[in-house]
Structures are given as C-alpha cells and as structure tokens.
C-alpha cells in the first residue's frame, strides 16, 4: 500500500472537502471516480493532488451515472472505491446505487447537499435526506451517516468504508455545502494507529483461479425472471439489514429527562440546536435534544425512549419536513406533540432555534 499518508495525530485547519479527501486516503481508498458538481468539487481536487503521491487512482467521468457505475466497477474489482456528489448529481447517482443495493456492492458516496429542487443553489440544504436514504427503485437498504463537523466528516468517511465492506450495503456520508466549504479545525490520524482496523476488501470478479475449473465463475445479476426469485433475494437482504441495524445505529442526546421541549435535528443544524439547548438550559428551561447520526438505519428505539419522556418535540431542519417524516415514521403510535421549524435550503442559526423554542414554551404556559 506504500507510504502512510498520515502519521500520528495532526491538528489541522481545513475545509470539509479537504477533510474527506484525507479521510479517504487514511482509510486506504484506492480509487475515486467523480463528476464535477458544486459543492463537492474540492474533494476531487484534493484527491487528485494527493492521489499520485500514494499510488492512488482517479477517473473523471462523463456524468454522475458513470461516476456511480464506475465506482460499482471499482468495487467489483475488489478495490476500496468511492465517489462524491450533490443535488442533481445525487439524483443521477441513485441509479447506480440502486444496483449496488441490489447486488450488495459496498460503494461509498459522499454527498454534500445543496439547495433543491432542481439546480436551485450550490450553497447548502438538508433536502437530500429522503433521496439519500430511500433513493432508487428499492427499499433503502443502505447506510447513511449524517455528519455535523469536520472531525465527524473525517471519522465517518473512514467508518463508511468499514461499514460498507463489513455489511456490504452502499454507504453514504451525508454532509452539506456548509460542511464542504467551511474551514475549521480537526485532528486527522491514521486509523490503524488509533486501533481502527480497516475491513479487508474482496474482489467480486477477476478472482484467482480458472472459472469453471478451479472455482465457480462469478455470475452476478440484478434481474430476475419471477417474483418469487426476487422476493427471496430481497428478504435475505432485508433480514441482514435488520440484523445489522442495532449494531451500527448511532445517535446523541442531551437533557432528555423530562424535557419540556426535546429538539430534534441532524447534521450541521444539530450544532445550532445543541447551542440553543445549552443556552436555554442555562436559563433554567427544560430543553434537551436528540440527534440521529445514522439516518438509515434510524435509531428508532432510542428516539422513542427520549420522546416518551418529553412534553413535546421540536424538529428543526433545513428542509421542508424530510427529517420530520423519518421522525414521525419512527414514533408511529406515540402521542407526543410535534412542533417544527422547517427552513428548506437555508441555514439555521442558534438564535432562531432559541426564539422558536421559547415561543413554544410560552404557548404552553
């Protein structure tokens, strides 16, 4: 594998896109395929600058369909392969990721959400939650990590390769334009030095030995003749997905005991929510938060437990109800009231969250 890109722990100050490129390098990713789209471009730009020094490869493709399908090809050849996209590119990316889902191909995709629908803005949003969790003509058998800082972008990009290769489901790191473009400090490291073992990769095609003589040939398909054939394959995948779920779901919570308002947010908006919760708590108000880190699979039990102790919930997101949909689905049957602060395609400051939470608390009295 050549020289290690990172030795020891290094405190650095960089953009999120740069952090992703370093993380992929640290994780031992071998090839990136990509197509330019703002705000993820610098992932490719940093990767292409770093890659040749460590004998890594890159291919710029003709579109995101190709970026996704070449990534699938790279994984089939047994490489830790990844791509990155955003917005309309993420829409196209769903076709190849649907194939990855069907054939259990451990692709890794970094998504830097931008405004939608359509071309919208190149800046920021949280509007690709539904698309990333459930895109494609399937059942959403994929893993989606929603990060909120550069440290997490680094940590979870490494983790994404391991989750993907361990469980063989396509894995997404869902961030956004703010995380992509802003600069903040983080500590980068070599995972092995930190005791994080990288899950070994395995070729699906081009294995050793003569097919038909030394071994069976790989005959990989995603097309089935009859319904029963399909459902058999799907049921097996769904079973394995459900078995995996409790092992990989991640969340974070604060002050969930008897909260008058439990704030719910993910990704970068979580940071505003966390600040607001601490500020309101300091004022003597009973405000907590719950943050799903994995949006797929969703930390259902944990959210239900927290919600059961809360008087009401306040879902805060830079989308018009995509996290809300996940929350409602996972709280089905519970009668805790849900308030919202939904700002599709724009950033949310801690002050706005404080104001909204206080309004709700005021209404209650």
């Amino acid at each position: 594998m050549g020289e290690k890109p990172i030795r020891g722990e290094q405190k650095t100050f960089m953009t999120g896109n740069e952090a992703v490129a370093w993380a992929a390098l640290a994780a031992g990713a071998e090839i990136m395929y990509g197509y330019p789209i703002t705000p993820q471009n610098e992932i490719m730009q940093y990767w292409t600058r770093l890659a040749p020094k460590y004998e890594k490869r890159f291919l710029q493709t003709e579109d995101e369909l190709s970026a996704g399908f070449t990534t699938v090809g790279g994984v089939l050849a047994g490489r830790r392969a990844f791509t990155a996209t955003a917005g309309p590119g993420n829409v196209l990316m769903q076709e190849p990721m649907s194939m990855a889902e069907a054939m259990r191909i451990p692709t890794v995709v970094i998504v830097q959400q931008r405004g939608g629908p359509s071309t919208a803005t190149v800046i920021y949003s949280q509007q690709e939650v539904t698309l990333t969790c459930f895109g494609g003509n399937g059942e959403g058998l994929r893993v989606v990590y929603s990060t909120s800082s550069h440290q997490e972008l680094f940590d979870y990009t490494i983790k994404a390769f391991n989750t993907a290769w361990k469980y063989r489901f396509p894995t997404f790191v869902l961030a956004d334009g703010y995380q992509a473009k802003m600069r903040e400090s983080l500590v980068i490291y070599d995972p092995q030095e930190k005791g994080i073992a990288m899950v070994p990769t395995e070729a699906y095609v081009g294995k050793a030995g003569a097919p038909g003589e030394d071994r069976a040939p790989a005959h990989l398909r995603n097309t089935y003749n009859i319904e029963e054939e399909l459902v058999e394959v799907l049921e097996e995948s769904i079973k394995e997905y459900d078995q995996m779920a409790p092992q990989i779901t991640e969340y974070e919570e604060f002050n969930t005991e008897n909260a008058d308002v439990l704030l719910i947010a993910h990704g970068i908006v979580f940071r505003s929510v966390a600040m607001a919760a601490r500020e309101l708590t300091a004022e003597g108000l009973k405000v907590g938060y719950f943050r799903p880190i994995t949006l797929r699979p969703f930390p259902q039990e944990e959210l239900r437990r927290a919600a059961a102790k809360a008087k009401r919930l306040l879902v805060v997101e830079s989308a018009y109800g995509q996290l809300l949909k996940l929350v409602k689905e996972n709280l089905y049957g519970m009668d805790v009231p849900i308030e919202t602060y939904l700002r599709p395609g724009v950033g949310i400051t801690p002050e706005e969250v404080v104001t909204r939470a206080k309004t709700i608390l005021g209404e209650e009295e």
Partner: protein
Amino acid sequence: MEVMPKIPKSWNLETKPHKFCPGCGHGMVLKALGQAIDELGIQDRMVFGCDIGCSLLSWDFFNVDTVQTHHGRTTPVMVGVKRANPELIVVAYMGDGGGYAIGSQHLVNAATRDDKITVLLVNNTNYAMTGGQMAPTTMPGQKTETTPYGRDVSEAGYPMMGPEMVAAISHEGAYVARGSVAKFRRLKAYIKKALENQMAGRGFSFVEALSTCPTNWRTNAQQTWAFLEDQMTKQYPPGELKTPTGKEA
C-alpha cells in the same frame, strides 16, 4: 492444423441450450466471442459485463466472471473494473439501444478517453426485449412497434452509424470494426483483434455485430437472412473502420 471445437471451452454448458429465441443472432456473436476467448487463453482473467435488453440473457452464458448491469451502463461498469484492475480483460456486451441511445454518452466518452476496454454491440435494428420498438439502428422505412407505418426519417430520425462515429472520435491505438453474424469467421476475427488490442494496452476497441431478430422482425428464415444480408449490410457496411496499424484484415 487444430480444428476448433464447435462449442467453446469458455461456454458454461450448464446453461445450454441458451435462452435466446430461435434464429436470434446473439448466440452466434457469443460463440465468436467464446472462441476468441479460448484462442487467446484469457478465460481466467476475463470479466464479461452484459447490459439490459436481450444481452442480459448472457449473464450466465460463459464460465467467465460476469456482471449483469443496468440498461446502457455496462460501459461505465467495465471502465470502473478496468481502471481499478488493469490486469483484467473486460468486455462490455450490449445491444443497440443500450450502446447508442441510453448509454451513448458512455460509449462516446469511453472512446474519447481511450479506455482500454472492449465494447461489443449487437445491432438487430430494434428493442427486442421490450417487444420490438424502434431503436437508433432501425432502418429507414422499417416497421416496428413504435413506427407501425415504417420509420419516417423526417420524424423519427436516421439510423445511427455507430462504428463510423466511434472511428471518428477514437484515437490512434483504437480498433473499430463492424462484423455480421452472416460472416462468422470474419466476425470472430474482429472480436479477437479487439481483445488483442485491449491486451496490448493499445486503446479502446469496439465491434458492432449485425445480427438477426426474426421474432420481432416477424420473418421466416429466408426473409431473416435476406434482411440481414441484403438490406442491413447496405445501410451498415461491414469491415474494419480503424486499426492501430492502419491496415485492413
């Protein structure tokens, strides 16, 4: 002189007889490919990718590592495999719809990037798997399910000249040819040269194979052959369009 066995060694006998319709040309193209694989001795480092459309029926055709992909997307999957492991010899196998319509951007860009892969495209002038709709290669005046009065070029456009296009946009080391199942030996020679071109790392290689589809053409054996030999070869002249040496076979 060694006599080639009728059934290529690289074929998967468990899945024979194959699943194509009687009179379909796919079996011939795959036989030519199978013999080329045998002759080049590359069965254990081949990756065969097949598209959607009738080509998907070849997903278990060979004792060769095979991936069936999406409609039009076999080229990028094989590009991805080859870029990740250049030791492998990859073939992207597709129909005219997959290569010239829904996946045309991949064909164009793989050719211009000079990806060291082999694209083998079967031209039977229609979308056969879906029941015989017009394809990019449907002949002027030809009746299909979506051109019931015949392809009117002023409305529905002209036939796609695939190898001519690929020859125009590809580079020095590329190999481009159009063969026909009616001339089996020549078709096999083209496919073999295309694979050799990839093995030598010279450049992109592309072979279009004129083929038959009596099911959707609604033709008997004689009419099928006549359509292929008389009409298709006039519209789509077989031959080598580009060789790395500049010489014809």
